[in-house]
């Protein structure tokens, strides 16, 4: 497959071939964590270690946001004492981490995924349910998959 140089080129000369959805990992409860299982559709597109690194880093960001410890107690008690009006001027810790995540995803897209014809969608745009990875094919080529119907026996559980 052709290697794309940047996001702009991806958009102009590629067409969306397929989408893969990385599901949530609930083994540790309801905290936000995504499965690091490598989907078969990406096997020819990206190295397994790069993909796993991305998901593991995202998981660590979410764990940091949802950590229940000294800082979250402080934030909670302070906010309660002000009847939560303090959030008019202050950002919650979760929102701060979400900004970091957005930056990280954009960085990953620019450096690693777009050159391979892939694009990660921030999970917050999908209700924190899935990490959506879009797979692009070069418009000029005949393309290996002609749409999502060709995907069969996908990520078995």
């Amino acid at each position, binding site marked *: 497959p052709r290697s794309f140089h940047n996001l702009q080129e991806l958009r102009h000369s590629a067409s969306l071939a397929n989408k893969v959805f990385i599901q949530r990992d609930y083994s540790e409860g309801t905290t936000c964590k995504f499965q690091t299982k490598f989907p078969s559709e990406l096997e020819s597109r990206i190295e397994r270690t790069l993909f796993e690194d991305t998901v593991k880093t995202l998981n660590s960001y979410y764990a940091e946001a949802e950590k229940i410890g000294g800082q979250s107690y402080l934030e909670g008690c302070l906010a309660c004492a002000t009847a939560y009006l303090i959030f008019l001027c202050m950002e919650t810790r979760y929102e701060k981490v979400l900004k970091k995540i957005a930056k990280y995803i954009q960085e990953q897209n620019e450096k690693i995924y777009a050159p391979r014809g892939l694009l990660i969608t921030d999970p917050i745009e*999908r209700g924190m349910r899935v990490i959506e990875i879009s797979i692009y094919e070069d418009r000029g080529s005949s393309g290996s998959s002609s749409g999502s119907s060709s995907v069969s026996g996908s990520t078995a559980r």
Partner: protein
Amino acid sequence: MSAVMITRKVRKWEKLPGKNTFCCDGRVMMARQKGVFYLTLFLIIGTCSLFFAFECPYLAVHLSPAIPVFAILLFFFVMAMLLRTSFSDPGVLPRALPEEATFIEMEIEAANGNVPAGQRPPPRIRNVQINNQIVKLKYCYTCKIFRPPRASHCSICDNCVDRFDHHCPWVGNCVGKRNYRYFYLFTLSLSLLTIYIFTFNIVHVVMRSVDNGFLNTLKETPGTVLEVLVCFFTLWSVVGLTGFHTYLISLNQTTNEDIKGSWSGKNRVQNPYSHKNIIKNCCEVLCGPIYPSVLDRRGLMQEDSPVSATSAAPSSSSISNPVPQTMHAVLCLQKTTAALIPNEHTPEDAKPSVAASAEKSPSPKDGDPPAPKVPPLASPETDVETSIVKDKTH
């Protein structure tokens, strides 16, 4: 084609499926039926006004001025918690977009294998292991997702809500992950306020009767009778409710799970979310992180609307390649400066929109806007079979 398509920018809340009402351009989110919520407001504000008008002047002079001051602080706290519970997003899970829905359907078909013709397909259930317990995730036919653990679909609001507790008509909203702590603090502070007003009503009547006699006192402050009546009935219900929720919090359970008996009984799974420690459970529910809303209510999107047929025009660009949102910043992510002006209504919900606009702005500013992502099969009415199954599963 003879219709002219006009694309206009709309806020995403205008296109959200579900039976919520939105106010203040998407900042406020409530259920449709608000009658009981207005009653709650009326009762609280009415009773407190009577207290401030009749009892407080006397008590401030004869006992202590701290009494009305504390009452005012408590009243403001109760109102703040009530409005925050009522106006905020309880933790609504957005419905699956068409591609995600298709992906899930294919996984289900792959898992079920070939069903012989005439046989009903097995129920859509996914088993996950949480803390060494097997929990079944149900499929929601309306939202087209497998519900995360502890999420449930509210039929009144027609949304899946994360950590769904119950739909409370008194606050006019669902109580879920994002607003449970506000709901609890509301019931707790309302109990305190009710007890406070009730107590000082009695004190006031006693003190005044000593000087003037009982009947004269009632004539001078007729509001007292009304207040005592309201407080008496409120006490039983609200204090009971607070006690019930304190019990639930200490066990890290939701009302929904308690009613369904999910974790009770010998043959059933034990609650996998409980830390088995009352203090830890309380801390997680009350002092846990403040979760952001995943519904981008105030985000902008393109909407096509056909205008009267005059001359042929090319279809708008929004029906072109559906490239993911992170690639497109320009048109739909231009937040108006209005989003940055703190509004006087819901302080909490203005913040996520500001954070969202800040987090999206680093994306490259490229041309085409995405297609408006409204799932075509969002309403069960369009699909008779699924609506019948939905009634059975809910």
